[in-house]
């Protein structure tokens, strides 16, 4: 238990860590403010509470009940999505929504109302949550669902851990015929092609996502690979290796720089010869390519990195994306790969849920200090101008004013905030 976040920036100076292990027990005594902390897979400071206490939920990792006939699972909030997959896939069930890493907790998935490559058909994580128990610092417990304490449900879903501790939840898994996915990869040369591919795939493909080359400029701007997939019938194929590679140490310098970046992006774009390729993929490499390398976040060196994920409304999406990509390419910074996806129109349940109709772009930036922060501010100008938003789960630097612009309903959360809970993120954007 480290009490850090995935971007390794910011680094909290002092946090008191308390382990929760018993869902029926009252919260342990703490002084100052506290914040639930799942598996620390948020990038910035929304899972940190510098100067206060973290209530670490990984010790709440018990299953409660699983009905293999209906796919309804009850489990404690510190259970990892990886644990659910280990339990359920062999019995023909899969996560209804999954982020790009399986090492997140159920509580964390609810508190950020996470989304996946199937957002256009399945919506956010909370759509598949029948309910959860919320434990507050005053000792009260509430069952929250869409029908019972519905206002508390809406406040706690994407509530960034600020409304109390989710102790356990009931989820509905989705039926699958096995661990395999039929994937189709299309190379595209520009954003026009991307949007056309995305629109043409929405109806017949459960999962759609694109990797985009964010080092490309000029005529190559907006090129990338579009991947669409469906769960495939049970069939045999080799299981991917069980061994995880790892980054054992933090190198003294970031291994990511302009040169390695451009080279990688160009190679990646051209790795596929033809315009379309088909493959049968196991769910692990398909959904969780980065999970194969434990602690990959260390390659950015001791200063850590920042992730930026925004969404732009449909009408502004293409022009906004072009402007974002131009600014990123001009900066020579940016990640190996940026991820691009068109969200569906299903309404999000949480007051602060991030997904909304439009196109979402996510990418990493090594922390190069002022230059990086200035670039991200410049991206915010574009996003705000387009009426978009930035994802708090990935954020470490957003100005309060921007946050309140992106989430205009933010202060309706006020009555539901636990008076003894706070986070680095929340203090930054509201104080």
């Amino acid at each position, binding site marked *: 238990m480290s009490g850090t976040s995935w971007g390794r920036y910011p680094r909290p100076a002092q946090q008191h860590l308390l*382990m929760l*292990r*018993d*869902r*029926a027990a009252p919260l342990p005594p703490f002084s100052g403010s506290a914040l639930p902390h799942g598996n620390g897979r948020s990038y910035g400071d929304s899972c940190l509470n510098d100067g206060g206490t973290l209530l670490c939920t990984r010790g709440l990792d*018990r*299953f*409660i*009940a*699983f009905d293999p006939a209906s796919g309804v699972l009850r489990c404690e909030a510190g259970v990892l999505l990886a644990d659910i997959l280990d*339990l359920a896939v062999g019995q023909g069930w899969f996560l209804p929504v999954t982020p790009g890493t399986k090492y997140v907790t159920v509580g964390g998935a609810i508190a950020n109302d996470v989304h996946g490559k199937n957002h256009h058909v399945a919506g956010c994580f909370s759509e598949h949550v029948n309910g959860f128990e919320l434990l507050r610092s005053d000792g009260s417990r509430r069952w929250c669902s869409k029908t019972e304490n519905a206002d508390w449900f809406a406040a706690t879903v994407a509530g960034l851990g600020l409304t109390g501790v989710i102790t356990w939840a009931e989820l509905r898994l989705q039926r699958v015929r096995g661990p395999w996915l039929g994937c189709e990869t299309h190379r595209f040369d520009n954003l026009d092609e991307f949007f056309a591919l995305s629109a043409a795939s929405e109806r017949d493909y459960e999962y759609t996502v694109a990797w985009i080359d964010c080092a490309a400029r000029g005529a190559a701007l907006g090129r990338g690979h579009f991947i669409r997939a469906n769960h495939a019938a049970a069939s045999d194929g080799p299981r991917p290796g069980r061994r995880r590679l790892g980054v054992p140490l933090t190198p003294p310098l970031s291994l990511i720089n302009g040169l390695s970046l451009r080279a990688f992006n160009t190679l990646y774009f051209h790795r596929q010869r033809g315009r379309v390729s088909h493959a049968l993929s196991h769910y692990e490499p398909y959904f969780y390519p980065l999970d194969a390398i434990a602690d990959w976040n260390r390659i950015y060196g001791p200063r850590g990195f920042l992730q930026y994920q925004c969404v732009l409304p449909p009408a502004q999406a293409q022009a906004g994306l072009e402007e974002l990509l131009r600014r990123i390419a001009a900066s020579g910074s940016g990640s190996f790969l940026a991820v691009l996806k068109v969200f569906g129109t299903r309404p999000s349940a949480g007051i602060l849920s991030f997904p909304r109709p439009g196109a979402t772009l996510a990418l990493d930036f090594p922390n190069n200090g002022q230059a990086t922060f200035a670039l991200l501010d410049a991206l915010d100008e574009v996003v705000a101008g387009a009426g978009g938003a930035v994802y708090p789960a990935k954020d470490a630097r957003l100005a309060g004013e921007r946050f309140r612009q992106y989430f205009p309903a933010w202060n309706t959360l006020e009555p539901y905030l636990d008076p003894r809970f706070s986070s680095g993120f929340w203090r930054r954007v509201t104080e």
Partner: protein
Amino acid sequence: MRRILIIGATSAIAEATAREFAARGDALCLVGRDAGRLAAIAQDLGVRGAVRTATATLDVTDFAAHAGVIDLAERELGGLDTLLVAHGTLTDQAEAEASVDTLRREFDINAISVMALLTPVANRFAKQGFGSIAVISSVAGDRGRMSNYVYGSAKAAVSAFLSGLRQRLQKSGVNVLTIKPGFVDTPMTKDFPKGALWAKPEDVAKGIVKAIDKGRSVVYLPWFWSLIMLVIRNVPEFVFKRVKL
């Protein structure tokens, strides 16, 4: 399928071990002090694949209650072939130096209760002609050190008891396993700063199950502690007494 009785089933190491057993469809009877936590663990093990779970509450210093719990386990599981003893407390050394009451209480929990539970179970297993006994002792029992010799000597008593029991039961088809973990990150050690030598309960659990399955006698977990303790045991006393450990 094993029919397993676990004493101290709410221990982090025991719970992780029980998950390994559950995943392969064993039957488990969980014994500990806290009924609510035992019930939560039993539900979890059921979802993970345990064919049967039962729970019973026991404070191990309540010696008169031991026999009843063993009977219950045997009844609930339809027999018994494996025992894992995991309970323990990390003695506050300074307190035990100052108070004989503390010293005796710590010995009751970490040594006498263990031997008291082993005695009737050993007799049953000897009579039925099969069974596996596994007990979590500690590397701390290999040599008394100034920082924790009360805990260490209780564990040493357990280790010595087990080696005698192993010889005695050798011919009865009963295996006796002494488990000696090093540093494990559990609630017992929550106040310690953690470094590279620290293991996770899940990893220790895998080692325990493997050692039980293989019918091993003594296992250090993780394995490198056998080397560390080999050195520590062999430092001559005239040197050892000058070292602060």
